[in-house]
């Protein structure tokens, strides 16, 4: 029975589970329930990826109405790949969050936390799977509203202002997307993505389409925290509860990058966006500025969560850089980095959350001597940190490798050099934390001496991600195969206006 509904399951499962989680209403019960649900969604998306790889693309007509009249779910290798990463990280984070939120969130609010987490998961899956431009907006708002809630659950009052800023900027972004989709709809009369792609260039006079593209790109850029529009991200990631940060950092912005890829390649067509509108140059410049400015900002922070938040903005720069290269390899590098970055940032934020669980602070001073006191946590942090830097045998190396390859393919020597130079900055900001952990001795307080290793429920998901970091860093065929077939699929199905010389 489920085979037939495979494309809809990753959305429907968490969507229906969220209200049930609220009714269950007990902290432990909802934790188990949410984790099982998330694991189920992950299992379904694994099958979905297999089906998408073998069949090319799957379509599911909601309500039995054929597209473009009804809403279509459309799954291909690209979104199934990202979906698997999102659901897998969500499951691991849920396992991890039991201890973490006991420390960081009032117990009365635990059921609300799990409900919001499931809603956020449902929203993100919906964004990934849907084949309808307006339906995407609806799911975007589900995930955003759940995210605002999750961010504001922390005890520190600064999470409130961070959530508010996030809310205002997120809503502006969503409204911009709404304006853009409206303009497309106005010129084509349809909302289905594939239908839009076919009809978009039939429309006479494309000033409206140009504006629609601009608004969608700005709106999505706010959601994915592209460089000048990233102001909401560092405070939100810094002040949110650790489990929430681990989840958001490894999923929410990645999904927004996917939305950008989907709009560029499937709806507008790469030729129109890059050749005619010259978007590639804009994106490339912004991506490079993001990599350097935000990596530099990361080196200057004292709060480790803020360091990692700025690092996230810089890493998003790498993904956008891959997209802006307009080649199969470049897009593939971007897609691989979406997956890989989810693995490394998830592990890093989980390690930081474990430190907060034991030490009660995430200031860089609090890390002093932790190399001895919490060896497993800090080892996880070290490996994931090396992955961010891009050391061989980690996934970070794979992403950087393909990114540099893509740049060299087009003779962009400077670009390849800049990518490597960006890694040096990563060495500095990760190195500062490692130095504190391994080479500085702990302060002499009695309280500091009592710090123990993090509980198993936190270590297991953390180390699962770390092992994945190494495994996919050595056994690269799985990810590269999925990403390259996704990338090729996107390029083949991207509407080509005319053959460019």
């Amino acid at each position, binding site marked *: 029975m489920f085979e037939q509904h495979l494309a809809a399951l990753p959305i429907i499962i968490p969507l229906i589970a969220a209200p049930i989680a609220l009714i269950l209403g007990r902290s432990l019960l909802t934790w188990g329930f949410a984790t099982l649900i998330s694991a189920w969604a992950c299992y379904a998306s694994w099958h979905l990826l297999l089906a998408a790889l073998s069949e090319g693309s799957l379509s599911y007509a909601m309500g039995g109405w054929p597209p473009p009249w009804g809403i279509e779910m459309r799954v291909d290798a690209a979104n199934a790949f990202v979906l698997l990463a999102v659901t897998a990280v969500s499951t691991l984070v849920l396992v991890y969050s039991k201890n973490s939120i006991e420390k960081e969130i009032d117990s009365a609010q635990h059921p609300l936390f799990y409900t919001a987490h499931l809603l956020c998961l449902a929203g993100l899956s919906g964004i990934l799977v849907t084949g309808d431009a307006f339906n995407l907006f609806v799911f975007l*708002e589900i995930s955003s509203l759940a995210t605002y809630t999750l961010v504001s659950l922390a005890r520190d009052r600064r999470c409130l202002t961070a959530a508010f800023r996030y809310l205002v900027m997120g809503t502006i972004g969503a409204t911009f997307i709404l304006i853009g989709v409206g303009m497309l709809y106005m010129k084509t009369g349809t909302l289905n993505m594939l239908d839009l792609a076919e009809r978009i260039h039939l429309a006479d006079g494309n000033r409206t389409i140009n504006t629609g593209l601009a608004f969608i790109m700005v709106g999505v850029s706010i959601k994915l925290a592209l460089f000048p529009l990233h102001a909401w991200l560092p405070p939100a990631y810094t002040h949110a509860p650790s489990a929430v940060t681990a989840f958001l950092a490894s999923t929410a912005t990645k999904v927004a990058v996917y939305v950008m890829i989907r709009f560029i390649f499937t709806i507008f067509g790469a030729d129109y966006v890059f050749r005619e509108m010259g978007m590639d140059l804009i994106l490339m410049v912004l991506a490079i500025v993001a990599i350097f400015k935000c990596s530099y900002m990361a080196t200057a922070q004292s709060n480790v969560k803020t360091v990692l938040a700025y690092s996230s903005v810089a890493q998003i720069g790498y993904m956008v850089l891959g997209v802006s290269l307009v080649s199969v390899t470049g897009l593939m590098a971007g897609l691989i980095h979406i997956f890989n970055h989810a693995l490394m940032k998830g592990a890093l934020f989980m390690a930081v959350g474990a430190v907060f669980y034991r030490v009660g602070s995430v200031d860089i001073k609090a890390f002093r001597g932790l190399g001895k006191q919490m060896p497993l946590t800090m080892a996880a942090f070290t490996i994931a940190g090396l992955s961010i830097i891009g050391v061989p045998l980690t996934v970070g190396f794979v992403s950087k490798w393909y990114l540099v390859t893509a740049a060299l393919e087009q003779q962009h020597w400077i670009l390849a050099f800049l990518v490597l130079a960006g890694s040096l900055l990563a060495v500095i900001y990760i190195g500062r934390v490692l130095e504190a952990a391994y080479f500085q001795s702990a302060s002499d307080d009695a309280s500091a001496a009592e710090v123990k290793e993090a509980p198993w429920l936190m270590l297991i998901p953390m180390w699962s991600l770390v092992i994945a970091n190494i495994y996919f860093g050595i056994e690269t065929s799985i990810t590269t195969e999925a990403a390259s077939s996704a990338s090729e699929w996107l390029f083949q199905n991207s509407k080509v206006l005319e053959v460019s010389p």
Partner: protein
Amino acid sequence: MSFIIDYYNYWIVVFLMMTGFYIVISANNLVKKIVGLNIFQTSVFMLYITMGKVSGGTAPIVAEGVTLYSNPLPHVLILTAIVVGVATTAVGLSLIVRIKRAYGTVEENEFQNEDDAI
């Protein structure tokens, strides 16, 4: 002249959108920001409804003797969007209430100063 008749509606709606947008990004008071956000969104809704109108048509509810109906699809979309808007407003306002309790102010620069001081 016909150019103006064809487009005045869009232009006024654009003006309204930008007024709301200006309030959002310039206001220092959080409540006013939310009001601006609502004005911005409501104006975007008007853009959608404007494109669904057919001159001489009537509301898309079947009635005897009517042949020309306005387009129901934008109405459906905006119905959904209004609900999304009020949901965001509610969450935003409750954040404001909490910010007031935590900081004692709802002016953006004031609580920013307080955060910086820590």
